């Protein structure tokens, strides 16, 4: 019994963290129509910023194995705050570089930028210990309960963040600012004709969504208490979140949360199911069945609602 509850709690934590990422993507894509395929980059920045701000500089024997650029030993909440801030700053830089590109090129550039961020963290050992990453990250409020119950506390923390972000974004989308974003998504040309500085709004949306993603990254870092660059790769750092948003329904935050839970459920429960069904000799490969599942899920969703995601082709030609 305890086992199932523990499993559900872990599941809910990850699903909630992914839900936060999805909401961030929803700001980018659902609201503003920005094709950000570099979520993993903001994820990484958020996670590493929080990690470095909250960790101590390694001393003594540990210093021989762990290198990091700095370690400010700040409390968890400040770590999350700075995670958001830094993610926002990186977003602004990325935006200045790429927002003027047409959407396909924006998409591809963001993939490149995220991969470059990951590669930098992987190679530059002095920054955050390179490929080995950082461990022993702070767990907020860990003194309150016995270690085996700690996840319950963390789930509470994550859910609080989830709800705060949800309500903040819902407020935001109904504000005049939010309406401009939606106008931009619908028809950028008309929004510009209305006198709106489209570029500035897009930049703001990019920064806001990135900050949300940065928070998600920080929450992930302190949950797993250890991070390495290999975590922030395109599959789990970007494309799975896109799948979540598409499955849940792009354009609204409830959909983002729902999609995250559904896809993460599929992902984690199918592992169990597979391991139960599949013979032992096959077990190392069985988890990859999920790749096929999720891949097909994505394809099926785009095919069944071909205009539901990005709408019509704006060009004249029709095949």
């Amino acid at each position, binding site marked *: 019994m305890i086992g199932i509850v523990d499993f559900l709690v872990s599941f809910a934590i990850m699903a909630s963290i992914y839900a936060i990422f999805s909401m961030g993507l929803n700001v980018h894509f659902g609201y503003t129509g920005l*094709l950000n395929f570099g979520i993993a980059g903001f994820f990484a920045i958020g996670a590493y910023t929080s990690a470095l701000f909250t960790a101590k500089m390694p001393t003594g024997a540990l210093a021989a194995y762990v290198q990091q650029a700095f370690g400010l030993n700040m409390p968890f909440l400040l770590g999350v705050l700075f995670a958001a801030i830094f993610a926002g700053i990186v977003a602004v830089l990325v935006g200045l*570089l*790429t927002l003027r*590109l*047409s*959407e*396909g*090129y924006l*998409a*591809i*550039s963001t*993939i*490149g*930028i995220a*991969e*470059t961020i990951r*590669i*930098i963290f*992987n*190679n530059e050992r002095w920054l955050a210990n390179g490929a080995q990453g950082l461990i022993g990250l702070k767990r907020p409020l860990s003194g309150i309960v016995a270690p085996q119950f700690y996840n319950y506390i963390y789930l509470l923390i994550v859910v609080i963040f989830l709800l705060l972000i949800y309500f903040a974004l819902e407020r935001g989308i109904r504000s005049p600012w939010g309406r401009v974003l939606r106008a931009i998504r619908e028809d950028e040309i008309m929004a510009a004709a209305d006198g709106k500085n489209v570029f500035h709004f897009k930049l703001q949306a990019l920064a806001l969504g990135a900050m949300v993603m940065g928070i998600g990254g920080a929450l992930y870092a302190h949950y797993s208490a250890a991070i390495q660059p290999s975590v922030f790769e*395109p*599959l789990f750092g970007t*494309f799975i979140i*896109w*799948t979540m948003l*598409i499955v849940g329904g792009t354009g609204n935050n409830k959909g983002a949360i729902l999609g995250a839970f559904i896809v993460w459920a599929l992902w984690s429960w199918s592992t169990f199911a597979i391991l139960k069904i599949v013979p032992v000799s096959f077990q*190392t*490969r*069985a988890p*990859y*069945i*999920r*790749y*096929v*599942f*999720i*891949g*097909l*899920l*994505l*394809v099926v969703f*785009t*095919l069944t609602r*071909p*205009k539901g*995601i*990005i*709408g*019509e*082709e*704006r*060009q*004249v*030609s*029709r*095949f």
Partner: protein
Amino acid sequence: MVELIVYGIVLGSIIALGSVGLTLIWGITNVFNCAHGDQMTVGAYVTLLFAGIFSKIGPLQASVGPFSFSWGVLVSFIPSVVISIGLAVLMDRLVFRPLRRAGAHPMTGFIATIGVAWALRGLVYIIWGADFHFYAEGLRGMLFLPAGVKLRTDEIFIMIVAWGSVAGVYLFLGRTKAGKALRALADNPNLARVAGINTERMLLWAWGIAGALVALAGILYGIETQLRPEMGWIFLLALFAAVILGGQGSVTGALVGGLVMGIAQQVSTLFLMPTYKPAVAFIIMILVLIFRPKGIFGRGKAK
């Protein structure tokens, strides 16, 4: 430095080979096929599969000339190319065409191909597992060229196959009516239709070429390095960069872009760690997008 440029040309030739199909499809359908890299992976692994089968046959076990791999491997190129073409056409029928018919935005296709890429990679993992595989035990034959350049004989083979295929494609595109129509379609799809060129039929040719070349690129990459399920996905990033540098729909552009990427990546190891190579490709790509989005040979209007 010379060494690096030579290795860059070898790597670049493989990138170029893989990029041609990607740019053709992109030029005609406006959809960036993210599964292209994983199609390379499939091409490489299917060859492995057939090589395993053929290795049971005595005479096919011998190495081909001065190269590392056996005749069994070489013969396996054929079923691999055929299957790859079949896979490409299947992808078009099941994914690309329905989206075309529905008038979907090209980025929707982009997203769908990510799903396809994922699914293909999963299949490779399931069938062959995550370990590395090789076409041959050990390497054979080194050539010692001037300026301290050491080239494997296999790499000569790679160059021959890559550029031979490219030459074949050029002949097709330059000399045949279907080939020219394909170029026209990649150059200006709307005008091609206005001229009466049947897009669906020409697309089959495009997928055929893409399927064949991508399988060969995968096999050659497997010969050059090793086979692992992520090989195509990692390669895709270099293909992106090459195609964008070269310009949408331009075969010559893809070739130039591929060589530039290969050389740039290898030369970058002079002052950057080798693991930065993909980042090098990206930096170049982003610079191209910022300063000259249509690439070297791209169309008039940037897309």
